[in-house]
């Protein structure tokens, strides 16, 4: 059976959507600022300025799967993540926060930022549950906001699963597709 499809439409839409054409750094910062103001505190500001992440960064991310597929990744130092979780919990924060609380807090911030990033991307798409750990490797298709919160470095990157940089030294065996 022939459908008479010349393949022209497929070729025209073959290229994956690139995140740089869908969202910019200022929109990412603005979405994050809204989350910070509502959840961390009214007077908590994210300053668009690159800083240096400490040697012990921790990341939380959510995946978006749809016409654009990738992850929204929030990365900061462990101490920053602890302070953020303490601010989220406020009077319910225990004197010593355990790893679970810190990961829960950072994961929820990534979830809220990710959900709002998803809302400005073409749909329909599905948002994954937050994950915490070592960030998925950034690809060429990435929009990244370098921010400072209380003088501490924090980055939010919206990184596509397409458009990988070709690196002959990259170990592809350990790569987990998004």
């Amino acid at each position, binding site marked *: 059976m022939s459908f008479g499809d010349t393949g022209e439409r497929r070729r025209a839409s073959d290229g994956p959507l690139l995140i740089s054409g869908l969202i910019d750094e200022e929109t990412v910062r603005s979405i994050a600022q*809204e*989350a910070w*103001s*509502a*959840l961390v505190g009214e007077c908590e500001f994210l300053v668009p300025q690159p800083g240096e992440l400490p040697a012990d960064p921790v990341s939380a991310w959510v995946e978006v799967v749809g016409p654009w597929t990738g992850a929204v990744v929030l990365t900061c130092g462990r101490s920053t993540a602890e302070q953020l*979780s303490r601010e*989220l*919990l*406020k009077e*319910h924060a225990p004197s010593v926060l355990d790893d679970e*609380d810190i990961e*829960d*807090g950072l*994961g*929820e911030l990534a*979830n*809220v930022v*990710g*959900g*709002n990033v*998803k*809302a400005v991307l073409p*749909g*329909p798409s599905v*948002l*994954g*549950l*937050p994950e915490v750990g070592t960030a998925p490797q950034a690809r060429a298709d990435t929009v990244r906001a370098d921010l400072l919160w209380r003088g501490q470095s924090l980055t939010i990157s919206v990184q596509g699963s397409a458009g990988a940089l070709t690196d002959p030294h990259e170990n592809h065996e350990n790569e987990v597709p998004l």
Partner: protein
Amino acid sequence: MKILVADDSRVMRQIVIRTLRQAGYDDHDIVEAEDGADALAKVSSEKPDLVLSDWNMPNMTGMECLQALRSSGSAVPFGFVTSEGSPEMREKAADAGALFLIAKPFTEDTFKEHLDGVIA
């Protein structure tokens, strides 16, 4: 009045409970559930007057919980508090019988806007 707050994040459950208090709903009993399955069980055992539920949760999503409640004949008032507030999600929520969808991040004003009239 008893309110069931369902979210797999303990931090977010605390934020929802704090925001309820800031919005003036501070004299109600709060029950917490850590996923949709827990919420479904607690609607049966705790008999809340309102469910505030996250959408995206492990084990059972908030939507699956709502559908299971309505299938079992429960008409408990149910609202979503979720990080996704697209028109498509709001339509799905309304079609399934949710009273409202509050998108994260929210403020006490957002809570007042949706809950006045629902919470006595």
